[in-house]
């Protein structure tokens, strides 16, 4: 329960920051994608199941406020969380290379999906433009934010795991 509330709070804070503060602080009208960082990092830190649920919830949040149909972003975020869960086995907290690679891949994958479904299918074929002016800048900005945000999430997760371990050993 403690974990659920904490994760919920993290998602809410990131969503709010992303839609308000970072939109006003955007460079060249590009803002970072904090929710991808949250979904992705919980995916590889906690496994497929949690990644999936956290992704679903974050996506729904985006859908309700900014989606044209409910469920589209939820689906994308859910799969991103799930996919990242596969990498739990090779994840070590001290190593920042894997998180950086996974988060950037997730962000790129997310943008490619959005481009394909919401732009390509409407006949906007200038892929080169979109990748250079939307996807890559967002990727760079997100990576910069990741370096700070990832450690916050990691610390919170380690705290939670320590508390869970303690209360579990109490029962035994």
């Amino acid at each position: 329960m403690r974990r659920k509330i904490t994760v919920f709070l993290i998602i809410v804070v990131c969503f709010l920051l992303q839609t308000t503060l970072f939109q006003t602080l955007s460079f060249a009208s590009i803002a970072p994608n904090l929710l991808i960082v949250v979904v992705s990092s919980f995916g590889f830190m906690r496994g497929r199941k949690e990644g999936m649920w956290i992704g679903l919830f974050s996506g729904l949040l985006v859908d309700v406020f900014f989606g044209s149909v409910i469920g589209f972003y939820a689906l994308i975020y859910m799969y991103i969380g799930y996919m990242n869960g596969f990498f739990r086995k090779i994840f070590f907290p001290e190593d920042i290379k894997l998180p950086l690679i996974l988060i950037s891949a997730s962000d790129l994958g997310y943008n490619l999906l959005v481009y394909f479904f919401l732009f390509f299918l409407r006949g906007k074929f200038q892929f080169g433009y979109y990748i250079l002016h939307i996807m890559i800048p967002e990727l760079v900005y997100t990576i910069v934010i990741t370096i700070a945000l990832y450690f916050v999430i990691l610390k919170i997760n380690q705290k939670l795991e320590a508390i869970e371990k303690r209360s579990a050993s109490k029962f035994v």
Partner: protein
Amino acid sequence: MRRRSKHSFPTRYMLLILSGLCVLIMFVSFTLNLSGGPLNTVAGYVFTPMQKGINSVGNWFVSRADELKSLKNVTKENEELQAQVDELTTELNTVKLEQYELDSLRELFQLDQKYPSYKKVAARIIGSDSSNWFNTFVIDKGTKDGIEKDMNVIAGSGLVGIVIDVGPNYAKVRSIIDDANNVSGMTLSTTDRCNVNGNLESMNENQVIEFSNLKCDENVIGPGEQLVTSNISDKYLEGILIGYISSIKRDSNNLTYSGTVTPAVDFKHLQEVLVILDKKQSAK
């Protein structure tokens, strides 16, 4: 927790079920044009107040940064503006005279009802699209303040967009520069109709959006011409300023023209908007 202790449900089946559910919801909300429903209400009460708060913090940061930036230019600008004030005062006087004349003429011709003063409500923008692909935003007024779907949103004198979804205390607005948005427009001087569509690429590059399918006589319309919403649009009220034509070229079919429009509204620094509470009466 209890269920997990017995035997846990395989995650991949759960993923399949949830995917199916998402696709189902997508179809339902797309075909029936539903949106959120109870989700909207919950989201409105939980997130809207928080967005309001954080957004004011964000605005504070930006205004501090702007202050530092502008301090240098202020003195120079002041001189320029002073000159401009003198110039504009004289201009204003002539305009006033013309206005009186116009008013009396309108009274004569009883044209008042053509441009009624709409009832409006002011709202503050409290959040913008989380992705970099679209240009929708959330305002802090909803059904409680009388806002409904398809109401027009303006700022200053220019068109901002249209309400596409409402919750109890917030509303989603899609701006005219959004890549998926289309407005039926017309030129002010010749009332030739055209289609104005938002474009992410041209908006990012040159701060302009596109128009197409303008049927007009040769060399009548040039850059600087005002584009307003047309009389045949079924959602936008007639005669709201969209922007000014910045470039125009003849299409390859030699019949129609297309080009770019500079929006009348500064979307970069938009903070407050007005929602027009009158909706266009469309034949249904």
